[in-house]
């Protein structure tokens, strides 16, 4: 059985697509068969981050409507052969999806993949509900600021009440907290919520803390998920996330302000 993981947040711009891409690629690099699905119909982004936007012929909506087969629409990643991407449609809107057909597509994919990573659109409307409906696990992406935490809390309520697992009374969706754009310096200065604050408010297990990093923007523009940038803090933090998703216990890094060396102190680093 494939693990269906939804990457969600409520709020927009917190790093859902960046995280989906990094996690999808990271799991594939570990040898798992992974498919990444872009549920953000109308705002096709995942293919850009993955660097496969020029290879999109058919999309998710075509498959839902029976205009293309899954194999025609799936794009094989050029870097890792065990990773495929199912892109969103740019021309349609979120109402193009319906529960029944999405369920069929996921079931079909579940036969040949180990992980199905669903990149959710922002908001709490139909599109976001569709992305989380069939999930077994949810990665709730949150920035350390109050409005993002509030929206994540709202989404956690939805996960517990509006998902298939909730409707059928099955074991609830496994929730993970992924804190992104974390800046220990700003936490120390009291401008940002700390990991502890967010954990206290949301009270769900912490999956990872991704530090604010220049590498993320660079990676997005280049179409190379940041996890491939093994020298960057963000890349390393996503690698830790993968280990934890696969059941390893890894200590959290990048939570403290980095101590400056004597040279950078002298030259104002």
């Amino acid at each position, binding site marked *: 059985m494939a693990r269906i993981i939804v990457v969600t947040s409520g709020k927009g711009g917190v790093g859902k697509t960046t995280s989906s891409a990094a996690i999808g690629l990271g799991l594939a690099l570990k040898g798992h068969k992974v498919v990444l699905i872009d549920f953000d119909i109308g705002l096709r982004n995942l293919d850009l981050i993955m660097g496969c936007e020029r290879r999109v012929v058919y999309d998710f909506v075509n498959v839902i409507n029976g205009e293309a087969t899954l194999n025609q629409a799936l794009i094989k990643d050029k870097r890792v052969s065990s990773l495929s991407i199912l892109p969103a449609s740019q021309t349609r809107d979120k109402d193009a999806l319906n529960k029944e057909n999405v369920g069929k597509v996921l079931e079909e994919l579940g036969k040949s993949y180990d992980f199905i990573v669903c990149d959710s659109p922002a908001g709490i409307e139909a599109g976001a509900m569709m992305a989380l409906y069939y999930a077994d696990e949810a990665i709730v992406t949150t920035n350390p600021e109050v409005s993002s935490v509030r929206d994540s*809390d709202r989404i*956690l*309520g939805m996960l*517990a*009440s509006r998902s298939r697992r909730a409707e059928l009374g099955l074991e609830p969706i496994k929730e993970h907290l992924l804190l992104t754009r974390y800046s220990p310096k700003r936490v120390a200065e009291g401008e940002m919520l700390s990991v502890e604050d967010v954990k206290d*408010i949301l009270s769900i297990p912490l999956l990872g803390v991704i530090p604010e990093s220049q590498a993320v923007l660079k990676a997005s523009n280049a179409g190379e998920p940041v996890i491939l940038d093994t020298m960057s803090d963000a890349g390393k933090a996503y690698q830790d996330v993968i280990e934890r998703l696969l059941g390893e216990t890894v200590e959290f890094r990048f939570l403290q302000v980095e101590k400056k060396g004597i040279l950078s102190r002298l030259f104002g680093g």
Partner: protein
Amino acid sequence: MADASIEFKGSSFTLSVLHLRTSKLADIRADLARKVAQAPDFFYLVPLVVSIEQLECSIDYQAIKTLIEEFNFTFVGFTGSVAKEQRKLIREQGFSFVNTMKTNPSKVNSSEKTAIVEEPVATEPKTKAIPPQRHLYTDKVHRGQIRSGQQVYAKDQNLVVIGSVSAGAEVIADGNIHVYGSLRGRAIAGATGHHKAQIYCQHLEAELVSINGNYWLSESMEQHWGAPVYIHLTDSELTSSKLI
């Protein structure tokens, strides 16, 4: 004046009757749990009349009602051919007593070694007497966090939250509210008018607290912000006091 909008009429319904054979709550609970576990969906919100006919000693009626509702039955009332005094007592405690057309205890299979027996009987409906005004609330227990955008209302009950109430969430009770976690959202106690209602929480960071229509916004809670407190009314003024 003609009551065009409503009409009272009698009808017959088949209701499930729970025959109690013991007044030991623990035994009843155990057997009920076993029974319900066999078909939880079947029993969910089923209206239930409790027969006390086979009981030899008196029983805590409120406890029985609470127990029944704990298993998600809809409690209707008590039944059984019992002494007039006992019926009166039941009524006085605010429960309805349902008269059966004929009782047939011999039908009950007493060889079964359970404390309870279920058997459908036809009952004659009766207009429910309006229960006397009382403030004996039972508890509605919510386990887990109440998240932003969620609302929990304990109608005619106290509300117990074993978890936190998030900012943007709302908890309302006609009785008291107990939050065994942080209260960050809104809490409205004594919602239908009950000036003795109180709000208890382990950690006060609420957006709003209200008792019987008197409310505080967070700025009025500065004195005990972040502390374990209870909030109550003294002469129509909200007051907060530390729990410990």
